[in-house]
């Protein structure tokens, strides 16, 4: 089962895709701090068909897939996370949403 968070970045999709990997590490650190974990956690990314796969020491983000689709004016950013079942909306959602917000911010600033 997956939780999916979709957000929109008003930039060219190809540019966003190129910058995606660099945005993931700071976003994971921010998410970790938000839920009270040390921010400096090991992040390993792997390129998949339309985005990247994230392996993280932070359990709440481990196994996330971040993908980008869209056109030359609007990129749709989708983060999919494994979801264990009911009751996950606390820390996991908080981590995921913080992660998504920081990825967005990094992409908009890039």
């Amino acid at each position, binding site marked *: 089962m997956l939780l999916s968070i979709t*957000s929109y970045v008003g930039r060219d999709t190809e540019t966003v895709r190129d910058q995606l990997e660099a945005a993931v590490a700071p976003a994971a650190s921010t998410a970790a701090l938000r839920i009270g974990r040390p921010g400096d956690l090991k992040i390993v990314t792997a390129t998949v068909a339309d985005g990247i796969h994230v392996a993280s020491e932070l359990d709440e983000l481990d196994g996330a897939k971040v993908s980008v689709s869209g056109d030359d004016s609007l990129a*749709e950013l989708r983060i999919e996370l494994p979801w264990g079942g009911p009751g996950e*909306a606390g820390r996991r959602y908080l981590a995921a949403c913080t992660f998504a917000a920081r990825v967005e911010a990094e992409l908009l600033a890039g």
Partner: protein
Amino acid sequence: MTRTVTLQTIADEIGVSRATVSNAYNRPDQLSAGLRERILAAATRLGYPGPDPAARMLRTGRRGAIGLLFSEDLRTVFDDPDSALFIRGVTEAATDAGTVLTLIPVPVGVDPATSGVASSAVDGYLVFSVPDDHPALAMVLEQQVPIVLVDEPDLGRHHSFVGIDDRAGARAAAAHIVALGHSRIGAIVMRLGHRDQPGPVASREIGQSTIRIVRERWAGYTDELEAAEIATDTVPVWEAGANDPDRGRDAAFDLLTAHPEITALLCFSDQLAIGASQGAAALGRRVPEDVSIVGFDDIPRATTWDPPLTTVSQPLVDKGRVAAELLMEGTRTGRARRVDLPIGLVVRESTAPPTTPS
């Protein structure tokens, strides 16, 4: 003459700045626990009642409250387990954030202009399961405050949305029934819009429902039935008129009386499925031996019902929490986001292969 005690009075008494006293109330993480205790003790001694919420509202432009708009009356909302679980999640998130929750029911027949939509002072709205054409929706949109739409309607990327993949869930339910060998299948839907008109409905009417989850769940069922070469325009569908077990019971009784050949019922909710099993029993039909029943939502009663319901699960409490957190984030950032929560088919004891050959 009585002296008015202000933040400055307390600041002068303790020997700190006015901002430090303000933080003791509004941002307690900004000062030590010992200093905060000294400030609060001085405030009590001097008779200071605490910051004026109206003044804070004027200063910050925030009301410190979120509205929850729904299109049922308040009793129905608390009687309906889906809604009650959703509200529990909303309440948990609002409580954690120190935010007030304002409930705004606008049932059919109530003029939104005289409802809480016109008079509530809120920073944003959760719009919970409201038909596409509900008049209160336009009023909320005109206010230009952040909103989070839950389940329906889906207004696209400019407005945050929290829901599930209803179509995929329904597809899984229908696939399960088909895989068991059923081909004589009926369906029970809560209602297609504002109307309360129990009785048979044509499949094309369901596709035109003003309730998004009804359209999506029907599309999911038909995806799978058509893949199994079951003509969906021949599938009998009964509208219950409301989402409660009594209506589900009556709908199943009428549907199975009119179509005794049916061996499986796809119910658009667990509330309807629970009632449907009672309707089947009233006709002497056993579940699942004579008729299989599958629900949607996985409310707590689905587990304890006899027989326990096969259903599509969705995290109802989490949905409320996520929606409230998304709204509170939206009031800070103004950004819109879409969150799709997970679903899954839960196979229990209300479904089995048909005992009569198809």
